[in-house]
């Protein structure tokens, strides 16, 4: 239940972030990051558990999240071909947001 809550909060917060800061790219970004969250669901849940139990550090958790984005871009490269791939700088903001949301939820739960 807690895991599902984290993913739902992530989705909602990301929606707000995209609507606020990346208006022009909104439809594509929302689609991309929903797909990202959906494809990464199991891993995100597992990493969140490991992170909250202290088995992964903040840096390790961040490293894994970024590796998941890199894997997603490899999958896209395979599927869509080079011309359609745009490596964006937005990725770091999104990663920071995901980490912040997960950290906040964990801190709230501990309190």
């Amino acid at each position: 239940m807690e895991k599902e809550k984290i993913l739902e909060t992530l989705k909602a917060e990301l929606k707000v972030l995209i609507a606020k800061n990346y208006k022009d790219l909104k439809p594509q970004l929302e689609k991309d990051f929903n797909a990202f969250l959906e494809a990464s669901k199991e891993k995100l849940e597992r990493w969140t558990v490991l992170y909250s139990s202290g088995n992964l550090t903040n840096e390790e958790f961040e490293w894994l999240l970024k590796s998941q984005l890199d894997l997603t871009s490899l999958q896209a490269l395979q599927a869509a071909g080079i011309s359609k791939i745009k490596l964006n700088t937005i990725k770091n903001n999104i990663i920071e947001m995901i980490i912040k949301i997960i950290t906040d939820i964990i801190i709230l739960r501990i309190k």
Partner: protein
Amino acid sequence: MKPFISKYFIFLLTLLFLLNSCNSTRTALFDQYSYEKTIELKVETANLINKASTPYSCNKQEIENLRLKIEKLIEYEKNKPYNEISFEMWKALNDNERNLLAGFFKDWEQKETESKSFIIESKNQILEAFDLLIQYEIKKDKESKDNLLQIINLKN
């Protein structure tokens, strides 16, 4: 004589069309060497990452040997025609600034040792990237076979 010429003409046209389609998709043919080498490197990588709980300095030689093998394969992939996608995937895997294989080695070097949980999770991520490369190579084989079958079927 005439029907034979027209049949032959249609066959040639279709063949030209197919060759042109192959060109426009710009996909290299399946390569047994790339396929075998990628599997070999995947296994070596997995064994090496398992050692990441021991100091980087103790494994430095082995890491450099693996990196050299990877660089050789990347050079091979780079020079194959219509092979941009495989080449880009290999470059990503070997990019220090990304969080895949080269990024893992960089992290290991900085920390000297890695934690058990991180080794397990990051190894899964890196091996998944190798799997994508292997699957992509296999896909090329299927495409080559399909194209060949189309030509054979048209001939009959």
